[in-house]
């Protein structure tokens, strides 16, 4: 019987399909971020790298080794987290310049 070995994480049937859907959704959400934002640049890089590996490798064990990020179910969880983060980033817009400078003695140590 198959098992992930992790509590609460069930074995995913057809992980390639699930990852394909998630990565396409992430790339779609990233389109709404300005092109010069660092978050968009780096996340697109990560997602495209992983997506290419998923497209090329059809064996689950070898895919896990190539991605080097734990079990394939954990990779699915990471992609879901990245998707929810990308949706929240659109609201927060963290690529804008600094909100407010701190007082000059705020981060001085020793006082």
């Amino acid at each position, binding site marked *: 019987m198959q098992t992930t070995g992790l509590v609460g994480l069930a074995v995913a049937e057809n992980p390639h399909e699930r990852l394909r859907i998630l990565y396409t959704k992430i790339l779609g959400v990233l389109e709404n971020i300005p092109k010069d934002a*660092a*978050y968009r640049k*780096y*996340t697109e890089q*990560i997602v495209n790298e992983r997506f290419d590996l998923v497209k090329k490798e059809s064996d689950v064990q070898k895919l896990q080794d190539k991605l080097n*990020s*734990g079990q394939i179910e954990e990779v699915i969880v*990471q*992609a879901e*987290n*990245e998707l*929810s*983060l990308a949706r*929240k*980033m659109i609201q*927060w*817009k*963290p*690529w*804008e*310049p*600094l*909100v*407010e*400078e*701190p*007082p000059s*003695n*705020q*981060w001085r140590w*020793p*006082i």
Partner: protein
Amino acid sequence: MWAAAARGLARAALRATVRPKNEVEQKQLCAFGEYVAEILPKYIQQVQVTCFNELELMIHPDGIIPVLTFLRDHTNAQFKSLADLTAVDVPSRQYRFEIVYNLLSLRFNSRIRVKTYTDELTPIDSAVPVHKAANWYEREVWDMYGVFFANHPDLRRILTDYGFEGHPFRKDFPLSGYVEVRYDDEVKRVVAEPVELAQEFRKFDLNSPWETFPAYRPAPEPLKIEAGAKKEDAK
């Protein structure tokens, strides 16, 4: 025999017992700090890596939830574990309380520290929506320092006595407190009375007369040229 001991001493002096510097880890943490600062310039005010290879992120208080969510959910970060949530009281600053979050990434075996600031009256966003572990830590910071956390599910005292007044970890709260409790037989219950010490409080000045960190002296202030007094016409 003495010559052998002298040789051993000379060799020991060349290898001082200081923790060796881990340059690789230092570089990795610097690179990651720059990476995060590039992605979140709206909230990050300062990034530093201590000499003990600890990465610290200084944040504006509006950015607590965005930064903590980013560090938890981003694939390159994955700091899933909130190890600690504390506050530091520095009364001389305008924003006297410094809130510190310690995070641990299990995927990458790495730690990071996130620091924010607030004063006595400004509330801070609660980290409970991001990390459930923050619940009791924020209750402790409220109880001990008086920092209010907005959107906390249940913010009440956790360590002090039920009717206790004051926030004990503040620097202006005295060591022995203001009240002491005793059982009073007449009223048959515990009463709180102003504290009576048998000996007055002694404060020892433990500062050494020698300068402690000569390498970390503050830069001398440059001499400023001020306008001189006007010369009166001599008669």
